[in-house]
């Protein structure tokens, strides 16, 4: 398989996880492309304007990429704490609309600020890897790390609290779960993941512009989660991989590919209302893997 398509798919999977995290506690936030854009713009600015990082070296040092990721993670996390504290008071479709507004405000501002790339964007972002396979490996490592983290979270107190809020927020609060804080943690984690992906994406794409974080991206990333399923982290990962690959794999059919893509998003939820990775499938897996059964079944046994 083509390594650059693989990288795109892995990036899609990571963005799917970012949308999934708030959704695990029932919060439909579409802010992911906003934080993705913040991470990407930050990486683009640092690597092209701050020469100490090694932007003029033949290959851009990976340590600088890691530094950018730390900075992007901190920036997105800090912003998410502030934004989340206000926005998460909203429920359901109101939260979704508020986050769409947020993404649009960020996009239009970036578009009009020459210092942030303006309408043209930032070009010639230095490359830490000479081969696309380097990006694929790097992104795969990040995805594996984040999936591991999600898996841990889903099995501990925080993950159970998140699921309880999704099922019934009022009941969760009555049981002593700090719903405000739990939702905020999920929102911040989502923002950090999106920011990290933005950094990788900026280097991988070699150029960055405001259009990369727009409303279309909000909806596409949401489709990853709905298509893949939102019960466990594997859902958005599978959804992101498949739906990112689909338009590319459909390229031979030319102009029809986006129509087919639309049909998949239209028909997918009708055929599989709970996504590809749905509770029935998860149950079947647990049955097959008795070793994991005890630990995996524990969270679901709680009301």
């Amino acid at each position, binding site marked *: 398989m083509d390594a650059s398509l693989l990288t795109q798919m892995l990036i899609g999977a990571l963005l799917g996880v970012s949308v999934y995290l708030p959704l695990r506690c029932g919060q439909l936030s579409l802010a992911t492309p906003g934080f993705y854009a913040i991470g990407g713009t930050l990486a683009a600015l640092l690597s092209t304007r701050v020469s100490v990082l090694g932007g003029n070296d033949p290959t851009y040092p990976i340590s600088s990429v890691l530094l950018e990721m730390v900075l992007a993670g901190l920036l997105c996390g800090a912003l998410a704490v502030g934004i989340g504290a206000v926005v998460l008071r909203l429920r359901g479709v109101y939260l979704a609309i508020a986050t769409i507004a947020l993404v649009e405000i960020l996009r239009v501002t970036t578009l009009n600020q020459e210092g942030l790339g303006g309408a043209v964007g930032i070009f010639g972002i230095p490359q830490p890897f000479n081969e696309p396979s380097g990006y694929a490996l790097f992104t795969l490592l990040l995805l594996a790390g984040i999936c591991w983290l999600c898996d841990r979270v889903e099995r501990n107190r925080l993950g159970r609290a998140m699921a309880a809020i999704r099922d019934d927020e009022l009941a969760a609060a009555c049981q002593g779960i700090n719903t405000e804080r739990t939702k905020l943690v999920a929102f911040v984690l989502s923002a950090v993941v999106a920011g990290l992906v933005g950094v990788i994406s900026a280097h991988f794409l070699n150029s960055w512009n405001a259009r990369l974080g727009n409303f279309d991206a909000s909806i596409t990333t949401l489709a990853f989660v709905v298509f893949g399923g939102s019960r466990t982290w594997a859902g958005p990962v599978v959804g992101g991989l498949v739906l990112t690959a689909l338009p590319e794999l459909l390229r031979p059919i030319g102009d029809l590919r986006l129509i087919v893509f639309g049909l998949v998003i*239209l028909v997918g939820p009708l055929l599989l209302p709970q996504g590809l990775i749905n509770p029935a499938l998860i149950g079947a897996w647990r049955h097959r893997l008795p070793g994991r059964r005890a630990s995996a079944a524990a969270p679901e046994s709680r009301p």
Partner: protein
Amino acid sequence: MADLIQLLLNGLSTGAVYALFALGYTLVFSVLGVINFAHGAVFTLGAYFTFLLIGGAVGANGLLAGFQLPFALPFWLALLLAGVAAAVVSLLIEHIAFRPLRERGADPLLALITSLGAGVVLVNLIQLLVGAESYAIPTSALAGLPAAIRLFGAQVRTVQLLLLAVAAVLLVALSLWIDGSRSGKALRAVAEDASTAQLLGIPSGRMIQIAFGLSGFLAGIAGGLVGLSVSIAGPYFGIGYGLKGLGVLVLGGLGSVPGAVLGGLIIGIAEACVPAELSGYRDVVAYGFLFVVLLLRPQGLLGRVLPTKV
């Protein structure tokens, strides 16, 4: 004074389109509690239908290159028929993307995705058939009307006045229908509680279809009018309006008809007040408004607060 009138009319005519748009969302939202993301695509379709019906020729790209209807209708008739065609498409969307989910009692969130899928299909279908270039509905379609008239010393484009007039007529008719007629009351009953309404003998499914049909009709008319006053900037041009409409919807209060109108006019006028040197930030106005309103008054300007039920 002349400048002020000019500004106000610019704002009002843009705002009227936003209001028509938001009303379509509101009708569907009030009966189903979900947002129909294919609404922007229906709006776009309305604009293209109008263009074709007045005898416009398709450009060089797309499968229908050079296609032209053998007849050319007057603008008014074309607009009306485009509205009807858009209503039919909207009903089709309801049938394919909404009804199967509703019958299964699935998570309302899924309708967001399926309607979006329907929108993606429609927009790309348009692109495939007529290409991505922009089309303009010539103002000469309004045969017999002057291009601009003087009003209190201000030079006003006739198109803007027409837009305002048509929007006002539609909005008033819709409000009268919802508040006064038997079927309007039935619609409100379904909006209040679909299953109770059904028990009382109101055909909920039929009312939902009416809501979708009307919503599509309004979107189609709005599309045709914008195509006339600005231009059809390609298959994607409804998306920007779709997002603004969402802002208008929340500003006025989800599910409130007067709220949608008020929200549309406020955002239209606020955008018209943005000075030319900051015109790049014009789009921020609607979202900024929306954001502040959501935080201070989540139910919107004219919305109702619903108590949390256990």
